[in-house]
C-alpha cells in the first residue's frame, strides 16, 4: 500500500508539471501582446518595450517558465491585468465558493444516485428499474440552463422558498450561504445523477452474477445481508472512483450553472478573465483547477486502494 501511495503521488506531481507547461505555453501563444494589454492602446513603442523588459517577456521561454513556476509555487501569483488587484486572494475566495457548491452537490447527489442505482440493479429489468433508468436518462438530456431555469421558476418564483440568485458577498459563513447553494446544487445533481446511478446499477448487476453471491445466498444469510455485506462492498468500488473524480469537475466545470444562478465560483472567474485577456488570472485559475482535478483523482485512487484488499495488501 505504501508503494501504491508513493506511486500515485509521483503520478500526481508528474501530471501537475506537464499541465503547468501546457498552461504556460498556451497562454504565451494566445494572440495579444501582454504589454499592450497592460498599458493600453495609446502607449508608445518605447514604453511597451521597457515593460516587456521589466516583465521578462524578452527572456528565453524556458527561463520565463521557470520563473513563473517558482513564483506560482511560492504563492506569488501576481496581479490581475484588468482589476489590478492581487490574484491569490481573489482566486482563493472563488475556490472556497466552488468547494462549498461542490460539497453540497455531492451530499445531495451521491446518496440519491447510489440508492437509485442499487434499487435499479437489484430489480434488473423490472418496472422499478425501467422507471429509474428512463427518468434518470431523460433528466440528463436537458442542458443545465434549462433545468436551472425550471428549478428557479418552481422553487424561487412559484413556491418562493429559495432565492433565485445565488450571488454572495465575500466572507459569508457557510450556514448563511447554504440556502443559496441549494438550487445550483440541485441543477448540478441532475447532471451527475444519471451517470452515477447508471454506473452503480451496472456494478450491482455485474456483482450479482458472480459465484460468491451464490455462496453467500446458500449460507442461508438474510437477503439484506447478502446485498449489503457481500454485493455492495464490491459493486460500489467503481462508483466511489467516479464520485471522487466528479468532485474535480464540480469545482471548475460548473460554468453554466454558476452563470444561471449568478454564483461567484471559479468557472465564472475564468469566463471573466478570458473575456479580458487577463493572462495571470487565467493561468492561476487553470492551475488551481488542475490541482483540484489531480487531487480528486488521487483521492479516488487511494479510496479504491483502501477498499480493495487486492491493492491494499497487494505487492
Amino acid at each position, binding site marked *: 500500500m505504501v508503494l501504491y501511495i*508513493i506511486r500515485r503521488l509521483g503520478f500526481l506531481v508528474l501530471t501537475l508539471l506537464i499541465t503547468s507547461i501546457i498552461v504556460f505555453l498556451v497562454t504565451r501563444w494566445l494572440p495579444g501582446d501582454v504589454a499592450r494589454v497592460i498599458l493600453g492602446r495609446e502607449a508608445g513603442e518605447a514604453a511597451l518595450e521597457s515593460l516587456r523588459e521589466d516583465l521578462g517577456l524578452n527572456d528565453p521561454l524556458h527561463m520565463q517558465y521557470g520563473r513563473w513556476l517558482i513564483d506560482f509555487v511560492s504563492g506569488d501569483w501576481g496581479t490581475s491585468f484588468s482589476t489590478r488587484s492581487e490574484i491569490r486572494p481573489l482566486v482563493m475566495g472563488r475556490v472556497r465558493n466552488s468547494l462549498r457548491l461542490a460539497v453540497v452537490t455531492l451530499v445531495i447527489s451521491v446518496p440519491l444516485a447510489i440508492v437509485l442505482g442499487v434499487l435499479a440493479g437489484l430489480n434488473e429489468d423490472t418496472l422499478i428499474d425501467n422507471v429509474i433508468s428512463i427518468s434518470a436518462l431523460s433528466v440528463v438530456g436537458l442542458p443545465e440552463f434549462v433545468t436551472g431555469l425550471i428549478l428557479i421558476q418552481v422553487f424561487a418564483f412559484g413556491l418562493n422558498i429559495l432565492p433565485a440568485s445565488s450571488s454572495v458577498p465575500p466572507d459569508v459563513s457557510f450556514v448563511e450561504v447554504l440556502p443559496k447553494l441549494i438550487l445550483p446544487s440541485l441543477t448540478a445533481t441532475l447532471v451527475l445523477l444519471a451517470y452515477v446511478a447508471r454506473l452503480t446499477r451496472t456494478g450491482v448487476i455485474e456483482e450479482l452474477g458472480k459465484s460468491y453471491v451464490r*455462496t453467500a445466498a*446458500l*449460507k*442461508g*444469510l438474510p437477503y439484506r445481508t447478502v446485498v449489503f455485506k457481500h454485493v455492495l*462492498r464490491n459493486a460500489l468500488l467503481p462508483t466511489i472512483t467516479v464520485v471522487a473524480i466528479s468532485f474535480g469537475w464540480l469545482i471548475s466545470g460548473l460554468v453554466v450553472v454558476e452563470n444561471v444562478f449568478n454564483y461567484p465560483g471559479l468557472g465564472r472567474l475564468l469566463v471573466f478573465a478570458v473575456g479580458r485577456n487577463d493572462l495571470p488570472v487565467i493561468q492561476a485559475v487553470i492551475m488551481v483547477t488542475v490541482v483540484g482535478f489531480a487531487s480528486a483523482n488521487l483521492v479516488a485512487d487511494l479510496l479504491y486502494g483502501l477498499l*480493495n*484488499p487486492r491493492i491494499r495488501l497487494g505487492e
Partner: protein
Amino acid sequence: MVLDIDDVTVGYRQAGSWREAVRHVSLEIPPGQTYGLVGESGSGKTTLALATMRYLPEEGTVCRGEIRFRGRNLLALKDSEMRKIWGSDMAMVPQDALASLNPSVRLGEQVAEILRYQRGLSEAEAREQTAELFKRVQLGDPERVRSSYPHQLSGGMLQRVLTAMAMSTEPSLLVLDEPTSSLDVTTQAVMLDLFRELIEGQQQTAVVYITHNLGVVAQIADRVAVMYAGDLMEDAPTVDLYREPLHPYTRGLLECVPRLGENKTEVNLRPIRGRIPSLRDLPSGCIFRPRCPLAIEECKEYPPLYEAGDDRRSRCHRWDEIKAKEVSASQPVPQGAQISAPSVSGEEVLGVEDVEVHFTEGQSLIKLISGEPPTKVKAVDGVSLDVPRGQTVGLVGESGSGKTTLARAVVGLAERTGGRIRLLDKELPPGLKERTPDMFCCIQIVFQNPAETLNPYLSVGQILRRPLMRLRDQTPEELDAAVKSLLEAVHLSAEYASRLPGQLSGGEKQRVAIARAFAPRPDLLIADEPVTSLDVSVQASILNLFDELQDEEEIGTLFISHDLAVVGYLADVVAVIYLGQLMEVSESASIFDPPHHPYTEALLSSVPLIDPQGKQEEIRLEGEVPSPSEEIRGCPFHTRCPRFIGPVCAEEVPPWREIAGVDKRTFCHYTEEELRERQKRTFRFSEPSE
C-alpha cells in the same frame, strides 16, 4: 432418505424457447452415502445439483417432478423457508474456489457469519469455531487464513476454506460440484483424501459428488449415476458400474479414456462416435441412439430406467442382453486404426540445450532507488531435450512448472535468456523478430482452447487457406484441393470448409486447429494441452488423430499436458518437468513402471485410478509448489520431496543418472537400487480388463 429426487425435469428458457436440461431423473440418497454424479459437459449434472439446492437461475425451473429433502418437498418452499435449510442442513462446495469467495471479505468472517446466523453463536464463539474448522480441513496456520483475503491464498487452500464453510453446520446433505477440477493432480489427491476423511467422520451426511472425472468418482463414490445430455443413463454401486457397465454410453466412456500405463503401441482408444447432441435438437427415442453400437428399431422409443437387478438401473432397452454378454456395447475401433508400431527415432527435429527463460518481475523506479533487487523468475531453468522426427515427446508437469514457457521459447513468443535451440540443425534466434518465414513455417502450434484461436469471422476454408497462401505459391484450384485434403486428414467432410467456427463443436474446432497447424507441412508440431478443454469422448478421437497424423507426416511433436495418462498414452518419450527443470526423461513404456524419480512417483500416486478397486501407494506432497521466483538450492524438488535424504538434497545439485536396461535418465541423488528399496510395492494401475 436424505434426498429423494422423483422424476425431475428441469427446463431453461433460452432465446424465447424452452430447453429441458435435465429430464426424468429419479434418484435417492440415504444418509452416509456418497453419490457420484458423472457426465460430460452439457449432461445436466450441475443443473441437477442446483435444482437440488433449490437455487436454479431465474430462467430455469423444475417443470415436473418433486425433490424431497428429509421428507419435505423443496419446490413448495418459499425462499425465507429455504434460508433456514441453506447453509445449515444443506451445503454446497462449488467448483471455482477463487470466484466463489467474496474478494473483499476476510476468509474468517466468511465462515464465521454462517455460524452466527445458523447456529446463533456469538462473535467470539464463531471466531473460535472457525479456527477449529480450519484445523479440521488441515489448513496450517488457521489464524493467518482467518485474516486473509481470497487472493492471498492458493486454489487448494481456498477449496479447503469452502469445505470448512460447508461442513461448519454438519449438514444432512453436502453437494460437491467439481471441487477438485481446477486443482493440480497432487493437490487434488490431498483434497480427495480430505473429503474421504470428512465424509467418514459424518456418518449421517449424504453427499452428492459431481465430476466429469471418471477416476475421481471411482475413488470417492459409493454409488454412481451417469448422466448424458440431461438423461440419467445408468446408476449402480460404484464397483459394479466400473466392472460391468450395463449401458453402452457408460461402457463407451470407460473405454475412451487412456488408463495410466497404457500406450498407443499396445492399445487403441475407442472414441464414442458422433457428438453430444445439443438440447435444441435431441434425437427422438433413446438420446444415445445415433452414437450407440447396439441401436436397433426398438431404440426409437424412449427407454424407461429399467431395474436391472442387484440394485442397478439402466436406461437401455438391451440391458439384459448386455448383462448376459450376448452383445458387446463397446464402441468399434475406428476404421483404419492400428496399433502404432514403436516408432524409430529419426533425425533430430528440435534440439533444446540448457535453455533458460529468466525474467525479472516487479521492476520499478522505487525498487531501483531503494536498492531492492528486482524479483528474478526462473520460469525455465536449464532444460535439455530432443524431439526426433517421427516421435512424440510428452512434456508433463503441474501448473507453474514452466512447460508452456518452454514451448513459447521454442516458438519464439518468450525469449530465452540462455541456452540454444536448434531446429533441423539450424540455430533458432531467441526472438520472433530475428526469425525467418521459413522458421515460422517449420514450427506450428495447437493451443488448448480452440474457440479462442480460430477467428470467428472466417470460414473454416479461409482459416485453412491462409497458412497455405502465405507459405507456398499455389493456384486457387490447388488451394481448394489442399483445403479438402486437410479436412479429410482430420476426418471432417469437405462441406466444413464453408462453416464458421461458431457452428462447430469443441472437438471439431480442435480438428480445424490441427488441420491448420499441419497446413504448412511443419517439421515440428507443438501441442499445448490440446485435449484439456475437451470432453473425454472427444478427447479420444483427437488423440487418435494426433497419432495417425504423426505416423503419416513424419514430424516431431512436442506434446504438453498435465494429464499423466494422456501423455503416457500418446508419447514415445516422456519428460517430467518441475519448477522449470526436468526431473526425468524416459521412453514412455518405462516411465511409470516403475518410476525412478520421487516426483514422478508422487505424481503417479496422485492420479485417481479409473477403477474403484485399484489401489495405489499413497504418496502425498505437502504444501504448495514454491514460486519460481524463490531461490532453491540443490534439487528444486527437495522442499516437497517425500523421499528427502538429507542435506545432500538441499545443497547439492543432483546428477543425471542413466537407468540401466531402459532408455531413461533421472535427475536425483538416489541411485536406482536405493530408491527401489524404499518403494514398497510394485505399481498396479487397474484390473486387467475383460
